[in-house]
């Protein structure tokens, strides 16, 4: 139980409580300041900017009405980039979740040194992110260089330009994301599996449940909240994709046009100079992230805190 660490102490000594209160406020003051400045203010400012008109780079607040939104939403690339992101998520989400659950269950079937070594190997690629991850991907996907070159040639690819094509992007980004991100999730799922009580698993075995049955009928249902958590976070996080589409095109033969919503927002801000339309797109993605966060907090009860407990109860 986490929810009530020291209420008894506090209520028994009201005079100390007031002193504690003042100290506590000092303790959280810097954090509150940073939360306001870098968590809440940018969101509010983006809302303001999305209604502003820009004249010579200077915002005239509330002069644009909904114009920035119509510019952004009716841009022919708006639907295209969100469509791209969804076509990628349609593959990445099931592959990621199923892959991670299967690996975690296989690891957890026996608690031995082999499982520990494997878990560490899966975790290490988490050290690779952003442009470095794309760099590693470009090397690994190049049939001329790759440690998997036999596989790529067997699939009929001869040069890197055969592999890096927009039609393969959803699959490529799925593989890249799984490589860099699965290890962390595997560690979380493995931890969740470890917290399942031994009596439950023992009882199942007594009743003649084999390892596969216990994995599927007992362990899997018990870690479902984590599956939901991962699915929501993968969705909200991957819609923000930027480095992969922006950089991977460099290795192909033809330049690749805007692919993800974040690229479009960046394009509006820094190439076109319309920060209002850029803010409008950012707000759409922020909203998706917010909905995801609230879904995780209200439906999964993964994160213990009295805040979410009180909301549930």
């Amino acid at each position, binding site marked *: 139980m986490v929810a009530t660490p020291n209420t008894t102490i506090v209520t028994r000594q009201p005079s100390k409580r007031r002193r504690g209160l003042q100290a506590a406020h000092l303790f959280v003051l810097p954090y*509150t300041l940073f939360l306001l400045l870098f968590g809440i203010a940018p969101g509010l400012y983006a809302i303001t900017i999305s209604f502003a008109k820009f004249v010579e780079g200077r915002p005239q607040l509330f002069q644009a009405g909904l114009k920035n939104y119509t510019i952004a939403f009716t841009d022919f690339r708006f639907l295209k980039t969100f469509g791209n992101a969804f076509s990628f998520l349609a593959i990445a989400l099931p592959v990621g979740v199923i892959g991670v659950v299967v690996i975690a269950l296989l690891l957890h079937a026996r608690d031995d040194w082999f499982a520990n070594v*494997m878990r560490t190997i899966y975790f290490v690629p988490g050290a690779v992110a952003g442009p470095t991850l794309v760099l590693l991907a470009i090397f690994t996907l190049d049939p001329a260089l790759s440690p998997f070159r036999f596989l790529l040639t067997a699939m009929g690819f001869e040069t890197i330009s055969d592999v890096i094509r927009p039609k393969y992007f959803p699959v490529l980004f799925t593989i890249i994301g799984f490589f860099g991100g699965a290890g962390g999730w595997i560690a979380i799922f493995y931890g969740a599996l470890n917290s399942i009580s031994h009596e439950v698993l023992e009882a199942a075995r007594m009743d003649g449940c084999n390892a596969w049955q216990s994995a599927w009928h007992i362990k899997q249902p018990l870690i479902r909240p984590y599956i939901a958590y991962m699915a929501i976070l993968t969705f909200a996080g991957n819609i923000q994709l930027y480095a992969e589409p922006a950089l991977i095109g460099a290795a192909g033969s033809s330049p690749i046009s805007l692919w993800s919503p974040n690229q479009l927002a960046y394009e509006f801000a820094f190439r076109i100079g319309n920060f209002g339309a850029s803010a409008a797109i950012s707000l759409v993605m922020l909203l998706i992230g917010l909905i995801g966060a609230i879904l995780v907090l209200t439906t999964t009860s993964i994160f213990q805190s009295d805040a979410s407990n009180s909301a549930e109860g």
Partner: protein
Amino acid sequence: MARPGMFQRLQRAARADGISIPGMGLRVLVLLLFAIFFGLPLIWIVLAPTKTDTQLLDWPPLAFGSLDRALLAWKNLFGYGENSVAIWSRNSVVYTISSLLLSIAISLPAGYALAISRFAGRQFLLWATLISMILPGSALVLPLFLEMSLVRLTNTPWSVILPAGFFPFGVYLTYIFYATSLPKDLLAAARVDGCSEFQMFYYIGLPLARTLFGLLIFIAFTSNWNNYFLPLVMLNDDRLYNLPLGIQALISGTSALRPTFATDLPIRRAEVALAGLLLIVPVVIIFLFSQRYVVSGALTGSTKE
């Protein structure tokens, strides 16, 4: 007494875990295949700087070239631009360490206070922390740019360091840590002895937090070291770039990975791979050192008791 043979041991282990021997074989096979998927690219990139471009193409992927070639790659890489790689590395170190210190200095007292006392506004802080912790960081980057340009801080190190000081996940982990592992009797006794809240934090809270430190340092280091989208948006002077932006400049500004983009710079695949290693190796080292904190701690935030 004869020692049990391999087969008997396998059989016994299999019975104990409820897996058949073919089932165990399948498990090992699948897990090994995934180990190859996750491990091979990393082994490849460690070996890549030891080889010339021709060797990279013609030799078996996991062959070792020579240390001399790796040294040459190092020289070529650090000879790029006007001392660019050294400057980017220094920037990366400065940004990462400053962000790390700032974020931990802010998060630790906040998480501690949230765990041990009740105060007005606590619920709001907890909710805001949970939400912003789950919210993908990049969602706020463009809005942050607009805010920073309002106060004319874009294209300065502050535009990268200050936003990183907001570290809600660190606050959450600290909060969970103290809420679950701070002995309440100890605090009560200290209060009775007339200990002030600050003394309690300093003499009781901080010394207990070694595991927590390991975890926070790892998470803050990794996320700031790999920070890419925020500096990309904030910085346009390449003397201010960190290594991830530098890598991007190497990918798009040299012919190493762009056969169609001809330059006569000595930046080839080996050099770019080495640049990648400059970013990967510190995280792996920190990970190996803090592994036991990370593995136990990755779960602190997620296991339900």
